[in-house]
């Protein structure tokens, strides 16, 4: 069975969890003898050997270069050497055109597309080749917009695509509920397949932690609370900072490390200063590699206070570095992770209560960690990929006939 997979990013050129989830799912699928070709909107060396990765390049374009982490900055270098930058809608439209050209000479059984950025291309392929399309929903516009309506153009693409999809995979019950609520899609069209994590993907740590200041302060009795993610409204960091002020009042030896960038960066920076906790909240900007891994490791508690989080891989990554988590109940990961603290994202008092409890009690921290580590060891992408493979079989035209 051959699957044409349409995606927007893969590590190391990923801005967040989407690329990581795609890569790990694909690796698990390849172990189930699924033949995969992954089409990306840009060129890069991914060092991937278990599937074919193809850049979808428009005609006359020599290369498409992704800049930094932003979704909306792609540089197109034309064959004549000229360059141009395209906005996100133009990129989505161009990706659709490129995929349409690309599939003319390709044979495959099913199209599996990840998130709205690739859904238009999936619909186009369905129209051209009359093949089944499976849409994999890692987040919907209402999540990204922090529970409001969001961008109407994106909303429309999602609504149309969900209506025309043969099958929809949601990364959590939370997301399935959102799709049903926001788009009126019947529940039996949507399969929940939780994301997972592969411990083997995590590189070994070197001895010297990048956050030496935090390590030194820990030896003086300070405790460190870490958040990693985009600094956008969806991630609920305003509430975390409001809680941080309360935490520091009750447990002054608490430091907060905020790793990431986004449109709220300066707003949050100013908020921390306004709350009088600017000395205890460290902002690092976007990080990857060692600086990212060491942030997980230096933490006593990882907090993911998202307003709406379809899945949320970071708390699982935190466990792999020996750090327990506090997650919002509005996250998909809270459905699968039993041994973590959980709080409604709006409940700042309770968030404060739980953070204070951990930073003042190493035994609570250690017991949480001991138990979530047991859960973590059982996690694998195998179950998820088995479920995905079953969906492929259900929709494989040749198998049905």
């Amino acid at each position, binding site marked *: 069975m051959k699957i044409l997979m349409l995606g927007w990013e893969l590590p190391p050129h990923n801005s967040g969890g989407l690329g990581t989830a795609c890569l790990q799912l694909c690796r698990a699928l390849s172990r189930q003898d699924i033949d995969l070709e992954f089409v990306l909107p840009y060129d890069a060396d991914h060092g991937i050997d278990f599937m074919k990765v193809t850049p979808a390049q428009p005609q006359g374009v020599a290369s498409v270069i992704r800049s930094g982490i932003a979704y909306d900055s792609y540089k197109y270098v034309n064959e004549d050497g000229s360059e141009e930058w395209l906005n996100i809608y133009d990129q989505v439209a161009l990706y659709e055109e490129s995929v349409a050209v690309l599939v003319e000479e390709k044979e495959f059984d099913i199209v599996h597309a990840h998130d709205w950025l690739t859904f238009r291309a999936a619909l186009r392929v369905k129209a051209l080749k009359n093949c089944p399309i499976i849409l994999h929903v890692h987040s919907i516009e209402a999540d990204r917009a922090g529970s409001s309506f969001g961008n109407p153009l994106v909303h429309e693409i999602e609504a149309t695509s969900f209506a025309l999809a043969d099958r929809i995979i949601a990364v959590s019950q939370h997301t399935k509920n959102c799709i049903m609520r926001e788009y009126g899609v019947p529940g039996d069209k949507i399969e929940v397949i939780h994301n997972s994590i592969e411990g083997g993907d995590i590189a070994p740590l070197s001895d010297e932690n990048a956050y030496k200041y935090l390590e030194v302060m820990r030896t003086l009795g300070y405790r460190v609370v870490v958040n990693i993610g985009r600094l956008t409204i969806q991630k609920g960091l305003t509430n975390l900072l409001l809680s941080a002020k309360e935490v520091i009042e009750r447990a002054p030896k608490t430091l907060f490390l905020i790793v990431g960038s986004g449109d709220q960066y300066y707003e949050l920076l100013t908020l921390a200063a306004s709350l*009088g906790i600017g000395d205890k909240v460290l902002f690092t900007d976007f990080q990857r590699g060692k600086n990212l891994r060491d942030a997980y490791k230096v933490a006593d508690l990882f907090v993911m206070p998202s307003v709406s989080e379809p899945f949320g891989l970071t708390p699982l990554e935190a466990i792999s570095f020996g750090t327990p988590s506090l997650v919002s109940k509005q996250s998909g990961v809270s459905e699968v992770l039993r041994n973590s603290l959980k709080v409604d994202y709006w409940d700042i008092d309770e968030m404060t209560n739980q953070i204070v409890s951990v930073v003042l009690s190493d035994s609570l921290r250690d017991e949480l960690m001991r138990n979530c580590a047991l859960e973590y060891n059982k996690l694998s992408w195998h179950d998820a990929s088995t479920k995905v493979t079953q969906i492929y079989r259900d929709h494989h035209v040749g198998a049905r006939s």
Partner: protein
Amino acid sequence: MTDTKAIVLYLHVHQPYRIRHYTVYDTAHNHNYFEAPYEDRRSNERILHKVAEKSYLATNTRLMAMLAENPGFKLSISITGTIIEQLERWSPQALKSFQDLFNTGRVEIVAETYHHSLAFFYSRAEFEMQVEMHKKKVQEVFGQTPRVFRNTELSYNNDLAVWADRAGYKGILTEGWDPILDWRTSNFVYRPTYTNQIRLLMKNYKLSDDIAFRFGNHDWAEFPLTADKFSHWLSEDENATNFNLFMDYETFGEHNWHESGIFGFLEHLPKEWLKTDGHSFMTVSEVIDTFEPVDVIDVPQTITWADTERDLSAWLGNPMQSTSIQQLYDLQDRVISTKDLALIEDWRRLQTSDHFYYMCTKYFNDGDIHAYFSPYETPYEAYINFMNAYRDIIYRLTEHGVMT
């Protein structure tokens, strides 16, 4: 009524130690806050080379010639400890040119804090230490003991005047701000309220800004400004005794480039002004010795020479500024107790008011004068660098065992 009219030209020389791109990953790893690579826009050495060439050397050459040609020409200069250090290190030639100026005996040096800080508003002990450091430094480098005081950014209030009076200064400088002067003008000598001996000189901001800010503005109705037109304006004020022209030294050659004609204006000003009998130039001490105070000035709130607000809001107006400076001064007792001179000096360099000015978000979106003077892309970047350096100071305190 008086027959005598004096121009009191006072120039302020300062450069801070700008903080380099200093991240969380530098904190506790290295204590190098101020040394950016030479090609970096935040390189203090590079900026100093540029401003020394375009402004200090170019202007001092002309000032020396003006002093030689015009026996009546005099001026006053304040020069911070941080810029003297930088000149010693990176431009001995420019330092020599300042020494030559002071050696003429017709250039008076003005007292201030060594680190161009706002310490007066946070710690009297630290403030007095920095004033003393500055006094020692200028005695050593320029052979003069200052008798008139100016606080950073001409910040001033009644408390400062009382302090300066008790410290033995004969004069103090500040902004001639209209709400303070009310119906009066800045063109006289005044006495601060609650004092007896000390005298107050207030900047004539309109005339000063004609030179410092409007000189090169082609849209200004008075453009182009010439020395004879400017002298004529001053002559028309029949009652005035002294015109206090206070401005940044970098007005000449840096804020107004050579091409604007600013040096031609400067060179012609004494020639034009001294043509008339009774017209003179005086240093800040001379004007205080010559004229009696005409009234008492009461400044209960703090004023400065900055922005339309003329207050400290350019340095302390937003929470990033007001909290970070407070947090820095909160470390004072612990920093001093270490007796670690390198640490104490770094802590003092972080007090330089420019760091807080770079964090200013007032008018940030307009890309105005604040942006012009900042080596950072945004006020937030300035804050991030500063706080990472601040936390490194805390780390060093932990190494000394004085942070718990």
